[in-house]
């Protein structure tokens, strides 16, 4: 059986990985829920967040300011891309948004390669200290990542349930045309949602930067896991995304303790099982837009 100390650190590792997945997947999920687009370019904002964290933390010397800069710049990039590209394709079929956003992702990776080069970059861990729980050394930074993800979930819950814009977004997820009929400018809602999604992806990139090496294809490396999280949770559901992100994180982390190569395959098997039982994911809506 697995050593309990190893298991505890495995669980913490899985939770922190799940936090990153959640921050990434929430953007995809929100964009699908409200605008009915599949926005693969979230993976670009993730890479932008990570690279900004690298550069700014190198200049200023503080990783947290770097993360903040990453969030701001990826939010700004998301705003510009939404204004110039996505505004023109909202009305079209869902496959268009998928291909267009893939074009943006590939083009953006090209830009990143042109600016920062191909070499992977290291980012220092902001909190080096370790916490001692039952004789197991837990890096505090991973706990901080988990707490930030929980705070983001709480913040988004508050935003969607307590503010008027959030309520409009939630109504839009149910039925966009009725919201438009109430005299609300839905395209402004779309912009707000897209920028929030982009900023969340940037935050995920910035937080994940100290844990991994920052390289141009980092978005494509995490792609499979983010997809699995979104599919298992159900496109458009925030609660489903939250649950499935931590599920996938745990499966990857504990699976790698049992048999390392299995870790990448196990979430896929779970995804297939869930789709067999429920083709729309755990909390996915059965609504279908043609």
């Amino acid at each position, binding site marked *: 059986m697995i050593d309990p100390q190893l298991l505890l650190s495995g669980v913490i590792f899985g939770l922190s990985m799940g936090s990153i997945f959640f921050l990434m997947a929430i953007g995809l999920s929100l964009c699908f829920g409200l605008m009915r687009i599949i926005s693969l370019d979230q993976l670009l904002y993730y890479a932008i967040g990570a690279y900004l964290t690298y550069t700014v933390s190198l200049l200023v010397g503080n990783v947290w300011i770097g993360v903040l800069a990453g969030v701001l710049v990826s939010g700004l990039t998301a705003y510009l891309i939404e204004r110039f*590209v996505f505004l023109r394709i909202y009305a079209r079929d869902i496959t268009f948004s998928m291909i267009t956003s893939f074009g*943006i992702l590939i083009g953006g990776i090209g830009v990143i390669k042109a600016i920062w080069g191909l070499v992977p970059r290291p980012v220092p861990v902001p909190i080096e200290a370790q916490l001692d729980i039952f004789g197991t050394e837990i890096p505090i930074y991973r706990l901080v990542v988990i707490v930030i993800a929980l705070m983001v979930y709480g913040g988004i819950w508050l935003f969607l349930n307590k503010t008027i814009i959030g309520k409009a977004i939630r109504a839009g997820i149910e039925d966009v045309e009725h919201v438009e009929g109430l005299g609300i400018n839905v395209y402004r809602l779309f912009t707000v949602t897209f920028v929030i999604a982009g900023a969340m992806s940037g935050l995920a990139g910035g937080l994940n930067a100290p844990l991994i090496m920052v390289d141009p294809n980092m978005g494509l490396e995490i792609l499979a896991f983010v*997809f699995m999280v979104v*599919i298992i949770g159900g496109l458009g559901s925030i609660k489903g995304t939250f649950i499935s992100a931590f599920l996938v994180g745990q499966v990857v982390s504990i699976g790698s303790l049992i048999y390392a190569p299995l870790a990448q395959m196990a979430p896929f098997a779970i995804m297939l099982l869930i789709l067999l039982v429920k083709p729309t994911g755990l909390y996915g809506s059965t609504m279908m837009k043609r």
Partner: protein
Amino acid sequence: MNVLRWWSGLLVAFALLILLRIFLPLPFNNEIIIFSVYVIGCNFLLGRVGFISFGQPAYLAVGAYGTAFYLYYFGTNPYVGILIGILSGIVVSLIVGPLFVRLRSDYFALVNMALAVIIFFLMQKVLADITFGDNGLWFLTNVDSTPILDLTRPDQFYIFAFLAAFAVWAFYKYLDDSIFGACCLATKMNDDKVRFLGYNNFHIRLAAFVIANTTTALAGSLYAVYLGFVSPEMTSPARTADPVVVTILGGVGTLFGPIVGSVAYTGMKDLISKYFGNWELVIGILLVFIMLAGEKGIWGSLEPLIKRWVFRQREAEKPAAADAGVKSR
């Protein structure tokens, strides 16, 4: 008359490819032919069935590794290798097909893309003992030379790949005109009505899925025999969109689209990486512009022009023929 018309279209296409053989270097031609076989399957799925498939490299890798395992571990005959590649494509798509074709188009795209990434991990890490991970399998020296159409020689491989592509193309032409093709298009348009007409949606989609992915597996085994080497790189996440990009570039749902698209894409990639280096940037921006401009692609926007030109020619001939008919009576 109808038969004559599509044979003439076919002749034009292949006369073009023979011209390519004369004027362009051989490796580039082989690349184009294999790539167009690769893209035809994706084109069929996207244009006829309405499935956007970002997971096509998965089936490419299945075909390639089927052939590679045979040629590396068991036998030496490349033709048997290609047959095994096709068979493994059929088997894998029959296994995953029933799960995948039940899904909505958007879920299908995501799940298929995830499959491509999973096969990448499978070949790179999990099965590293038999696939040798990133180093790949090298079996060029294992391949026997056969008496007719020796596949180890690039010039004779070109003829074989050409014939294979021709057969695939004619098969898809036949499918497009058949009732099955019409059923596929109908499931894309309105699957409830197809059900009312007494067809089984699931079976239609499954058959289309298996056919398209088997074609892709054939392209994979052609790659394996041509290069004599297979590595997980062909299904890496960065390349999952290649067939979709080429399909859109060429024109979705058209028969010549894949060929035009592969010529344009392969040529562009070669030229850009030669003179500019950063091909991802250019392809990405180009893709966004093509999507913003419309959905027709290169062949899709050329086709009406060509048709109008041909039509005008015919109009000019017609009155003369009618006059002749009157006179003889």
